[in-house]
C-alpha cells in the first residue's frame, strides 16, 4: 500500500498475507475515488435521491426549555433510508465496489443497522450479499434480521467467541480471505485495517459538512459543543470531521457505560480506564482486554455500541485532547430516550441516546446563548423490543403474548392437519 494508515501511534494494517493484494486494490480504488470530484458528486446525488440527504437539523425547543440552558439542535441522521447514518458509508462503499468490478458484498453487523443498510445497497446495486451477525445480536434484533432476509441477504448467526460484533467481524474476515476475488467487505465502522478507518470517515464526513453549513445558515454560528455516541466511531467521526478545524467547537464522544465501571460491565474504551492499547482485528487502538491481550466481554443496552475496540482516529483525538470522551449508563440512556420521545416526538436509537444523555447533563449549566448539536445517528424502531422491556410496558407485553398465542394456534392447526394425513 502507498500509505501506512497511522494516526500517530494508532491504526495501521495488521492483515493476513493472503489479503495484501486485496488491500492494495482497495487502497488504490479509495484514493482514486477521493481524488475524483465526479465520485463525490455521484455520491451526493445518490444520497439525495435514494436516501434523505441533506438530513435537516432540528431545533429541540421543548428540550431546550426543559433544561433551561444551551439551545439544543439535533442532526437528523435517523432520517436516512434504513434509519441511520450507516447508509452513508454503505452507499459510498457500494460505488467503490462497483468501480472495483466486484459482484458480492459481505458485512458484519451489531445492532443490525449496518447489515440492513448493506443488504439494501446490495439489492439496489444487484450484488450478492452475506451478513455476519453475532448470535446474541440475532436474538435481540430480529426485526433487522427479518428485513435483511427480505432484501435477499443471507444472514449468518456467529456462535463463536462472545457471539457479538467483534466475532461477526472475525467471521467476515474469514469469508473475505476465501472469496476476495469477487467480494468486497463493507466494513461498517471507522475501525479495522487501513484504509477502512480513513475511508469510512471520509464517506461519513458528509454529516459534518452539512451540519457545519446548516448551523451557520440556520443559527448564524457554530455550536459550542457537538455530541455523538461512539461504538466503532463512524457517526462521531462523521459529524466531528465538519468541525475539526474549528478550535472553538468542543467535540464530545459518548461511549456505552453499560452498568458502570468495571471490566465486563460496559464498552467504554476511552472514557473509563479499563482499556489498553493493543492490536486486533487488523489495527492498533484501545481495546478492552486482559493482561495477556485476550479481548474481554462488553456490555451495553445497545447492540451497536458494545464493541471491544474504537476507531484509531478517535483514539488519536483522545490522546491529543482534541475530543473529550464520556460514558452514559444503560439506565441514563433509556431515560434520555423517553424524555426525547415525550418532549420532541423524536425517537433516537438507544445508541444515539447515549449522546443525548451527555448533552442533557451539560446543557443546564450552559448559557442560553450557547448552542449545542447532538448527532441523532439513528432511529429506535429496531429497538422497540428492548425499549419496551426497559420501560416495562404492560400493554406491549400483552400484545406479544397475544401474538405468540396466535402463532401457536396456527402452528398447532398445521400440525394437526399433518397428523390427519399421516
Amino acid at each position, binding site marked *: 500500500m502507498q500509505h501506512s494508515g497511522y494516526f500517530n501511534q494508532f491504526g495501521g494494517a495488521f492483515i493476513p498475507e493472503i489479503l495484501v493484494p486485496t488491500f492494495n486494490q482497495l487502497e488504490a480504488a479509495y484514493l482514486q475515488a477521493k481524488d475524483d470530484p465526479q465520485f463525490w458528486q455521484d455520491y451526493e446525488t445518490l444520497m439525495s435521491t435514494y436516501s434523505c440527504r441533506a438530513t435537516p437539523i432540528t431545533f429541540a425547543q421543548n428540550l431546550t426549555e426543559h433544561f433551561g440552558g444551551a439551545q439544543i439542535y439535533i442532526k437528523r441522521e435517523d432520517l436516512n433510508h434504513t434509519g441511520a447514518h450507516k447508509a452513508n458509508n454503505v452507499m459510498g462503499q457500494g460505488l467503490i465496489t462497483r468501480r472495483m468490478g466486484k459482484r458480492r458484498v459481505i458485512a458484519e453487523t451489531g445492532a443490525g443497522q449496518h447489515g440492513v443498510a448493506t443488504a439494501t445497497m446490495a439489492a439496489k446495486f444487484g450484488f450478492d450479499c452475506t451478513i455476519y451477525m453475532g448470535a446474541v445480536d440475532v436474538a435481540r434484533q430480529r426485526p433487522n434480521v427479518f428485513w435483511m432476509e427480505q432484501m435477499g441477504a443471507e444472514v449468518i448467526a456467529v456462535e463463536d467467541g462472545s457471539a457479538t460484533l467483534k466475532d461477526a467481524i472475525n467471521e467476515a474476515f474469514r469469508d473475505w480471505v476465501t472469496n476476495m476475488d469477487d467480494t468486497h467487505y463493507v466494513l461498517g465502522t471507522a475501525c479495522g485495517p487501513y484504509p477502512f478507518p480513513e475511508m469510512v470517515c471520509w464517506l461519513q464526513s458528509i454529516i459534518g459538512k452539512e451540519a457545519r453549513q446548516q448551523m451557520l445558515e440556520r443559527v448564524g454560528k457554530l455550536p459550542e459543543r457537538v455530541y455523538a455516541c461512539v461504538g466503532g466511531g463512524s457517526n462521531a467521526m462523521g459529524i466531528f470531521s465538519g468541525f475539526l478545524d474549528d478550535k472553538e467547537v468542543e467535540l464530545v464522544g459518548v461511549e456505552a457505560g453499560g452498568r458502570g465501571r468495571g471490566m465486563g460491565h460496559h464498552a467504554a474504551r476511552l472514557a473509563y480506564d479499563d482499556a489498553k492499547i*493493543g492490536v486486533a482485528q487488523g489495527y492498533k487502538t484501545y481495546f478492552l482486554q486482559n493482561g495477556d491481550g485476550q479481548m474481554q466481554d462488553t456490555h451495553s443496552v445497545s447492540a451497536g455500541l458494545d464493541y471491544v475496540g474504537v476507531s484509531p482516529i478517535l483514539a488519536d483525538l483522545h490522546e491529543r485532547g482534541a475530543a473529550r470522551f464520556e460514558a452514559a449508563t444503560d439506565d441514563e440512556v433509556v431515560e434520555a430516550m423517553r424524555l426525547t420521545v415525550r418532549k420532541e416526538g423524536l425517537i433516537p436509537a438507544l445508541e444515539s441516546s447515549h449522546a443525548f444523555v451527555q448533552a442533557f447533563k451539560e446543557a443546564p449549566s450552559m448559557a442560553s446563548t450557547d448552542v449545542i448539536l447532538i448527532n441523532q445517528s439513528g432511529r429506535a424502531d429496531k429497538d422497540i423490543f428492548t425499549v419496551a422491556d426497559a420501560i416495562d410496558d404492560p400493554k406491549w407485553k400483552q400484545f406479544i403474548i397475544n401474538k405468540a398465542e396466535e402463532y401457536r394456534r396456527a402452528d398447532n392447526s398445521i400440525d394437526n392437519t399433518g397428523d390427519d394425513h399421516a
Partner: protein
Amino acid sequence: MLTTASTTLETTMPSPAEQLRETLRARREQKELLLMTHIVLGYPNFDDSLCVVESMVKDGVDLMELQIPFSEPMADGPVILRANAQALAAGATTEQCMRFAERVSAEFDIPFLFMTYYNILFATGVEQFVRTMAEVGIQGAIIPDLPPEEGGEYLSAMKTQGLAPVHIFTPSSSPERLRELAQHSDGLVYCVARKGVTGKDTAFSSDLDAYLARCRESTDLPLALGFGVKSKEDMDFLRGRVDIAVVGSETIRVMEQRGVGAVSAFIEGLNAR
C-alpha cells in the same frame, strides 16, 4: 537457561535459527518430506497437550508449531478457532504456554515454533516476549497477522535473539512480494496451499506446481506447505514438491473425535511410505 554457558561458548554457539536450519537440513537428508504438526496449547488442557507432543515426537514428527491461544484468531478456521476459545475458557495463559514450551523443548529433541497473533506479543511487550521465547528454547515464530511492514520491532528482537521469523507465502503473493517476505524470514517459509482459513479441504493437484515453483525461486529456505493437509494421499502428493508438510486442524479433529490416544495411529499413517 543459557546462563551457564561461558562467554566464548555463547559467541560460537549456533543461534536457534541456525540450529533450526541445521536440524531441518539433517532430517531432510534422511527423509524426503518432513512433517510439522500444529497444536493449540492448553486445549483441552496442558496435560493432554503434553501427551500429544510426547506421542507425536515418538511417532516421528519432525517439528511442531505450538499455538498460544488468542481470543480473536482471525486467520483460523472453525476447528482451531474453537480450540483457541476452549483453551482460554479453561484458563490458559501466556505464562503457562511459556512454561509448557520450556518443558517440551528441554525434554524432546525436535524444533518447536510458536504460532500466535501479534497482540499476544504486544501485550507482554514484544522485546520481552521474544527474549522469553529464546530462554524457553523456542526456535522461531509464525505471526499470521503481522506483515513485515508492521513487524519492525518484532523482526529486530528476533534478530537480536537469533530466532527464526517465519513468514507466510500465499498463492496471491506476487514474485516481488515473495522475495520481500523471504528476506525477512529464517528457518523455513510457510506456504499456504490456497485462499481461506485453516482446516478446510484443499484439492491437491498439479495446479499447485506453478505456485510452488514461484515459492522455490524466491528463497533457499525449506518450504513448508499447510492448509488442508490431512491424509497419506496428501503427503504422497507433496513428497518431492515441498520440504515439509504441515498438519494442523486434522490432528485436532482426530483428537476430538477419537481421543488423544488416536493421534499416534493418525501420525503413523501420515508418515507411512
